[in-house]
Structure formats: C-alpha cells, structure tokens
C-alpha cells in the first residue's frame, strides 16, 4: 500500500501570500476554483493502492481546515487526517515526528508533497520509475528544468544522465550549479527515516554540548533539503525523475493567478465540467473560466481567459474580468473592469470602477522560465504587481485601483496607484 503526506506549513509561513492568508490558511486558498491542496489530494487518490493522505503542518485546528477535511474525504473516499506539529519542525522534522503515523499499516512507500506548488503531479510515473530500480533503500525526487538565472532560487540537482542518480544537491546556491531544480515532490520508502533519524541524533549530540539549550525542539527541526538530501547525494540512494509537465511554486499571491491558469488549462482534459461554456443567456466566456455554480453572472458580462469566480459571487451587467480570481461573496457592480487581480471575499467594486494589476508571468519566450515572486519592493519602490483586495474591501464607483494591495476591511474613497493600503 501507499500513503501520501502533504506539507502544509503554518500561519507563520507564507507571509508573501498576505493579505489573503489572513483570512484562510494559504493551503486552502482557491486555485482554479478549488483549494490549493485539493489538486495534490486528487493527484494522490489517482495512484492505485493509495490508502491514506496525511496533512502535516502547524496550524491550530480551525474550522476551515476541518471543513475541508470532511468534504475532501467525502469526495475522494479516502482517509485524510491532519497532524499538527507542536512547532515548525521543517520539511523533514514534521514527517520524522509523525513517522509512526506514516508507517502504520506498513506502506511500501509514501509521497511527500509541498503544498505551495502547482504541478501535473506525475505521481504514477514517479512510482513506476522507482519500482523499476526495485531497491527499497532508494528515494526519488521530482525535478524540472529552470533557466540558469532563476535556478539559483531553487534547490539544484546534479544527476547522472544515465542512472538519474543525484550526485550533488544544493539548496538556493549563489552561483550556477544546475538547471535541474527540485519540485518539492518526493517518493520515499520507510528507509528515509533512518537518514532523517541520523540528522536528529547528530542535532541532539550537538545540542548536548551546548548549555541551557532548548533541546527537543531544535533537534527535531530538520530540513529535508539541506540536512537530508545534501547528505544523500552521491550515496547511490537519491534519484531524480525529471518532468516536462507544468510546475510552479505558489509563494506570492501573484503566482496564484498564474497557477490558476496552469490548472484551468488542464481542466479541459481532466475536469471539463469545471470549465464554463458559452451558452445562450449566459455570459461571454473567453478561454478557460471557472464559475462556481452558486455565482450569479449577468449575461452581458465578459469573462476570461483565466478567471475563477467563487461561491456566491455577483457579477453585474457589462462587467469584464480577465486573468483574475474573484473570491466568494464578492460583488462586481455594472460595467466594472477587473484585470490581473484577486478580489477578496465579500468585497464590493462599484460601478465603472477599474481594478487592475500588472501580471508577473514568467517570460513567455523562455520555456524554462519560472514565475518570480521574490520581493514586494525593489530599490525601495513597490514593484508593479497584481492588485489584491483583501477580505471585505469596498471600492467606490468610477475609481481606478492600479497595482495596489488593499488590506482587509477597508472602505476606499478614491483612486489608488502603486500603493499598499493599510
């Protein structure tokens, strides 16, 4: 049997996703109409013999998460549990802490997926690739190609071209190492815990030598990338499977729009029912658009491409939405124009208002370019980004909100450009 672990992090992480992560844990933020990690879960459930999915993170139990667990279990007919870390233990510390839970039932292998990536999740291919080797002492990581410059922002993998063995691994190097980067998606066997355990023992040894150390927590904080993979590289145990499918990190809110586009574009294959169609009496749809069945959209509105309309959203007459995510309960009054923006829950945009951001898409002419979501500011100035309206923001009629981030529960009274509005 198989299991899967999704590493969902916690509230102290994902600050680049503010102000949206104030309202909902980032892993539950809707991407292409469904919570970010639902894409992970769905991919896991498609792998034959998958018996359980564990979410590991350090969020306090909360209603949104519980509701998601209930509905996902119903939908996918598989046990899904949330295991809460007592502190942020890192990508390796979390699974090590809950190793008994993972190993219960004796899985042959288990996947580990970071929540903040979007991907085609070629899990079955990874499994086949792993089984081909037939060695339960080896582990597999998913890699993809980045361009030379951007590879420095990722974990870089040097692999043997024939055997695919990872010969060298380095996290975010300062000089170029390899164009093959770590996707944050792994296939482990139970043997991995011996290697994480060794790190734990070493950490503990080091701590014993220090005085008044806060022992357990620091010994258990283990990073898979720096602490485990770097040591496993060149030992004949770690292998890389390179995917040509789409992949992106979802670090900033801007990358959520890009990730939505990637997922929406594969809905025509895997979830055609989620894509809105042009129908008489319905709005005009251009390209890939997701509309929640409870949303009310005027027939004169024009939506798409890459638009996700959430639950209970109201879209008035003559509204235009392109490259945007409209979150549940928001209301777009007549003639509004929303481009490259995320409109927060229960926000209202007045008539003829324009809410516009600047897309931060990867260079379309470079097939290996990734989205840049490093900094909000450059040279002391806010870099033009998508516009984000937090929860319950009110935009008056006829104004323009350009390249701005509006924190929750604000009622604006005029136009804003290139600002963060507290």
């Amino acid at each position, binding site marked *: 049997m198989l299991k899967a672990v999704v590493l969902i992090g916690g509230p102290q992480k994902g600050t680049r996703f503010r102000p949206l992560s104030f309202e909902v844990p980032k892993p539950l933020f809707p991407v292409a109409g469904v919570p970010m990690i639902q894409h992970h879960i769905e991919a896991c459930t498609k792998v034959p013999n998958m018996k359980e999915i564990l979410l590991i993170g350090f969020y306090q139990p909360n209603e949104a998460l519980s509701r998601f667990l209930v509905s996902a279990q119903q939908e996918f007919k598989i046990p899904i549990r949330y295991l809460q870390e007592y502190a942020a233990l890192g990508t390796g510390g979390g699974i090590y802490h809950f190793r008994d839970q993972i190993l219960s039932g004796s899985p042959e292998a288990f996947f580990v997926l970071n929540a903040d990536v979007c991907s085609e999740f070629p899990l079955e291919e990874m499994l086949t690739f792993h089984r081909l080797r037939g060695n339960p002492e080896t582990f597999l990581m998913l890699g993809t190609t980045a361009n030379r410059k951007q590879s420095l922002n990722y974990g870089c993998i040097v692999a043997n071209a024939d055997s695919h063995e990872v010969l060298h691994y380095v996290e975010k190097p300062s000089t170029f190492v390899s164009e093959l980067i770590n996707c944050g998606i792994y296939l482990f066997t139970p043997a991995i815990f011996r290697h994480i355990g060794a790190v734990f023992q070493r950490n503990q040894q080091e701590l014993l030598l220090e005085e008044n150390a806060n022992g357990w927590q620091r010994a258990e904080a283990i990073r898979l990338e720096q602490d485990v993979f770097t040591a496993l590289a060149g030992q004949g145990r770690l292998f890389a499977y390179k995917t040509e499918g789409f992949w992106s990190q979802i670090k900033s809110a801007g990358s959520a729009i890009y990730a939505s586009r990637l997922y929406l574009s594969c809905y025509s294959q895997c979830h055609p029912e989620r894509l809105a169609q042009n129908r008489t009496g319905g709005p005009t749809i251009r390209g890939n658009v997701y509309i929640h069945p409870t949303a009310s959209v005027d027939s004169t509105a024009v939506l798409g491409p890459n638009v996700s309309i959430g639950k209970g959203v109201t879209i008035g007459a003559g509204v235009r939405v392109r490259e945007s995510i409209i979150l549940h309960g928001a209301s777009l009054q007549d003639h509004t124009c929303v481009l490259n923006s995320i409109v927060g829950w229960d926000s209202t945009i007045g008539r003829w208002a324009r809410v516009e951001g600047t897309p931060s898409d990867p260079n379309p002419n470079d097939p290996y370019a990734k989205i840049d979501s490093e900094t909000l500011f450059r040279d002391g100035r806010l870099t033009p980004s998508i516009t984000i309206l937090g929860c319950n923001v009110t935009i008056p009629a*006829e104004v323009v909100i350009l390249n701005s981030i509006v924190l929750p529960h604000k009622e604006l009274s005029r136009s804003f450009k290139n600002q963060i509005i507290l």
Partner: protein
Amino acid sequence: MKALILVGGYGTRLRPLTLSIPKPLVDFCNKPILLHQVEALVKAGVSHVILAVSYMSELLEKEMKEQEQKLGIHISLSHEKEPLGTAGPLALARELLTENSEPFFVLNSDVICDFPFADMVRFHRHHGKEGTIVVTKVEEPSKYGVVVCEADTGRIHRFVEKPQVFVSNKINAGMYIFNPSVLERIQLQPTSIEKEIFPVMAEQGQLYAMELQGFWMDIGQPKDFLTGMCMYLQSLRLKQPERLHSGPGFVGNVLVDPTAKIGANCSIGPNVTVGADVVVEDGVRIKRCTVLKGSRIRSHSWLESCIVGWSSSVGQWVRMENVTVLGEDVIVNDELYLNGANVLPHKSIAESVPEPRIIM
C-alpha cells in the same frame, strides 16, 4: 464695422488636435472656435472680419469662404510672412482698418466668453478715447499681468506683470476696440501690443478698461479647453437651456449633436459635448469630456476630462482620464487605461499609459 482676429501660427498648444486642422476650426462645444467669435461679431454689427494668420491653410480659406456666404459678411485673410507679434498684424492690415473713421475690434483667437461686443462699442463711444480693452477678474492675479484702473471710469493707470503683492485682480481678456488713429502708434515690425503699445496709451490717458461680466477662458490648451467647455455649457444652461440634452442617463449640462447616437444604460455628464455622428455604445460613462465628430466610444468605457479626436475609436472597458487627448483617427484597444495620454493622429494604442505622456 471691422474686426481683426489674431489667429497666429500653428496652434501648437492645442496639439495633437491642431495637427489635423487649424486651431480656429477646432470644434468647441460643437462649433468651430472661430465661429463663436465671428457670429458674435456679426451680431454686434461687424461686416468685415480680417483673420491675421502667420501660416496659410487651404482648409481655413475654404471654410472662411463658406462662412462668408452663410453669414453674409466679408472675411479676408491677412498673411504675415514673419511673426509680427500681437500688434504688427494691425499694421499689416492698416489699409483695411483705416478705410473709414469707425472704431474696429481686435481679438485674441483663443478666448471664449459671453462676447460683449455691443457693450464694448457703447463703452468705447462713451469715454471717447482711443482704445478700450476688456478685463476679467481672476482668483490668482500673481500668475498674470494685471490691469490697474480707475474704479468708476475704467481709465487705465498702469499694467503690472505677475504682481507679487496684490494691486488688482483684473487681467487683459484679449478683446479690444480701437479708433483707427491707434495705427499711428504701430510700425510694421514684430511688436507686442500688450507690452509696447498699451503702456504708452495708458500713460496718455487714451486706454480704458471695461469689465467683463460672466465667464471667460483662454482655451488655447487642452486642460483649459475642457474648463472653458464647462463654463460655456453652464452659460448655455442659464441662457438657452433648450439646447442642452436631458433625460434618463444624462447628468448636468450635456450638449449632444442631433446626429449622435447614445446607447442604453449610459451615464453622460455633467459637462460633456458629443459631436456629430458620434456613436456612444451601451453602458458608457462620460464626464467632463469633448467627443469630436465621427468618433466611437465602445461599451462599458469610462471617460473623464478627455478630448476624443475626430473619427477616433475607444475600445470596450477602456478608462481614460486626466486630460487624455486623442488626435484624429486614433484607435484605443479594448480594456486599456490611459492616464493623461497625448496621442498623435492615426495611432493605434495597444498598451496602457498609466502615467501622463505623449504617444508619438
């Protein structure tokens, strides 16, 4: 009576509009700027209008020929080979202006107001001196040259350029009436009437100021063109409200040519002029704009403080504001944002202009 209108050169301040036609022919509130003045002059008894131009334009000549017939007056063009300033053109037209002893009008061509020509004649005859200039009150006199005059008679004492302390709030409104004898003061050479002729006349007690009632604006540049339009429409509201458009979808003072088509669910106004053959599609919001002949505003666009040039096309969900001026035959693609863009004729705009700039 005769009138000389100082039309001048290329009208560069009103570009990009004046790249397509001479400034006097640019429509202001659906009528060429020059016709506002000429019609008012005719009403006051002027039968011969001399246009002082520094570059010849066939279009202007042709248009003036038509107006001659329509208005039943004589219009002649006086062409200066080199720029002669604001007084030189009078000397150039000396023969015409001194045919008889009647006083004549001199006007700057950029001025729009309730033209007080009949009052000027009366005032001028009453004081019996050589010249009368019209003055108008401004809020910030320090930006202009002001006129200091006697309160009850209007006799001008002196002119003060950009006064740092308050001496007067009255400025030269660019409309004069002179006796032919004024030409004895002017040589055929570049001369400024304001700086070289008026001070001498004032010193000799030959120059009087008549205060203008109502609105006044120099509409020589786009920003002021729009402000002048607001004033003109408000004055229409008071004097000829029947010429303004009203009804559902119209707010405040709106002037719409009868051949224009306005779609459903629009909100037009306040302070909008829509020219002939313009098409405004459904769900458009327009405030404080002039939309010139033959242009099309596509649905759900939002326009404030713009001039849309002749035969231009503004796409769907476009937002234009902050004195955006489109020249003739400009195409603005769907969903763009134009902030203070100045677009030269025959351009197609495919990218937003988030900060004011000129699009060559």
